[in-house]
């Protein structure tokens, strides 16, 4: 009778062995590695965009909606109006799942806090009313931007820009930039790790490494651009960005945009009747 061999590796082999390095005086490489890893994690695992299956918006309408909302928030100085716009935004936020909502709240609070820190000294210059109004408006603008980020994929953003007649060269640059940001970031991270491992003593001055790091990155990008263009041509690239056919219901789009258009109309003509 043979004894059954375990299929799994021992625990100590399965756990990644983290190399600890001595903290150095100029440990800027380690700091930047952390930043890059954070960015790469965000880029490689984008949050799933929250989309209603029954009520899908076309990308251009969603971009237009964001523009109108931000413009209205920026233009108004009436707290009542801001409250109405806040309610509209809160209604949209209800579509988010609890985990998405928690994530939204965290990042929104953090960004609003940073914005407020900059404007807080004006309390002593102009008084509390301006600081409160400014804080409220900034918070609303940041909330609407983050809601857009959570609910829109990058492809939708590109389609939206195309529908709004953005030049092809601009859209293509944007598409290539977001696609290859991750690749270049990964290459930079690997180079930094290699440099960090090869260094047996702290560099005389950290600036000496910068030229090598980014110079290499540029040369690598240049070589890659040549290969990329050859691949683009091989796939029949003709310099035009193809617009995806509309998959959304036109009536839904119009219906979703209606409250915003009504608000714009009330904002413009409301002054005559003392509403705004």
């Amino acid at each position, binding site marked *: 009778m043979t004894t059954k061999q375990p299929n799994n590796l021992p625990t100590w082999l399965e756990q990644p062995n983290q190399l600890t390095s001595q903290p150095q005086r*100029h440990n800027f490489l380690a700091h930047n590695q952390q930043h890059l890893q954070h960015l790469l994690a965000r880029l490689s695992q984008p949050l799933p965009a929250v989309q209603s299956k029954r009520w899908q918006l076309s990308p251009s309408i969603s971009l237009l909606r964001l523009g109108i909302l931000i413009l209205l928030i920026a233009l108004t100085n009436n707290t009542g109006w801001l409250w109405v716009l806040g309610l509209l935004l809160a209604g949209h936020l209800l579509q988010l799942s609890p985990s998405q909502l928690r994530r939204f709240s965290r990042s929104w609070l953090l960004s609003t806090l940073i914005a407020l820190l900059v404007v807080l000294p004006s309390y002593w210059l102009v008084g509390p009313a301006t600081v409160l109004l400014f804080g409220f408006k900034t918070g609303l603008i940041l909330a609407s931007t983050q809601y857009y980020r959570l609910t829109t994929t990058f492809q939708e953003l590109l389609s939206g820009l195309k529908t709004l007649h953005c030049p092809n060269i601009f859209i293509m640059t944007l598409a290539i930039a977001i696609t290859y940001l991750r690749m*270049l970031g990964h290459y930079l991270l690997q180079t930094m790790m290699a440099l960090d491992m090869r260094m047996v003593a702290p560099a005389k001055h950290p600036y000496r490494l910068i030229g090598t790091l*980014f110079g290499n990155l540029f040369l690598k990008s240049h070589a890659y651009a040549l290969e990329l263009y050859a691949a683009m041509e091989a796939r029949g690239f003709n310099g035009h960005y193809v617009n995806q056919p509309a998959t959304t219901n036109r009536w839904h789009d119009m219906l979703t945009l209606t409250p915003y258009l009504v608000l714009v109309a009330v904002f413009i003509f409301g002054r005559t009747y003392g509403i705004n």
Partner: protein
Amino acid sequence: MHIPDNYLSPATCGTLVLAVAPVWTVAVIKVKAQIKEKRETLPMLGIAASLAFLIMMFNLPIPGGTTAHAVGGTLLAVLIGPWAAVLALTVTVLLQALLFGDGGILAFGANAFNMAVIMPMVGYACYRVGVKFKHPKVGLFIGAYLGINVAALVAGIELGLQPLLAHTASGAPLYCPYGLNVTVPAMLAAHLLVAGWVEAIFTVLVYQFVHKVAPTNLYQVTPQRSRRPWAYLLGGLVVLSPLGLLASNTAWGEWSPAELKQRLAEQHISQQAPQGMVQGLHFKALFQDYTIGNLPISVGYILSAITAVLIFLLLMRGLQHDNQTTK
């Protein structure tokens, strides 16, 4: 330097988008021409935008234990060309605003104007001057330092003008609450003392590396085939120079002591012109107020313009290096 939303009034944001729109148009036209000569420029634009993004993410240690980051505007202009850099940096600024919340969406025009237009253009102009005088690295260093500082100054002015442009009846500012006396020193101090040096050193180091390893990968300026458009432009401006005569009043701040005295009296400020002005230096120029002999003033304007153009052309000619060798 990324201005968030709500710090600039929508009117300022709109004006700045309108100001940048012609630059974008020219950039697209120029880059399309560049793509015809160097086909890899198209993917390079996108990749350069990612490169700019990574440069802005990369923190460099500075004395005092803190860190700062470069923007890379001048560097990109030297590596891929100034117009391509304008487009690549515009895309970077848009990406940062839309995906990472760094900089505003309404303020996109302002941020693009500061970081994607002023910075690479100022930096590249200085670099070209350096190349002309056979000191490209010096030109690049000065360009990178000046580029980021001019951009910071403009951002400071944009922010500092807000309390003057948009305020309530009681004078409370509606957008950025700090005036020019706060914003300009705040923006400039940080950039003149820290960020400018970081940008300049970073730019020169990367340029040095690329120049040493692969000098052909640097952006090569295509020689201008014709100077005719410049001649037309200068000629047109010379012909149009008397246009200002249509305005009957003297330009603000250019009054003679007698005219100033009259204005002050009309506005009930004072019955006399300031003593310093009356008793100060009164230099009589050769062609005072562009009048040449008994010729009509408009002809005097045109002749003065032609004189100035010729003097500057002669000066430039004298400073240029000779292309032909003498036997």
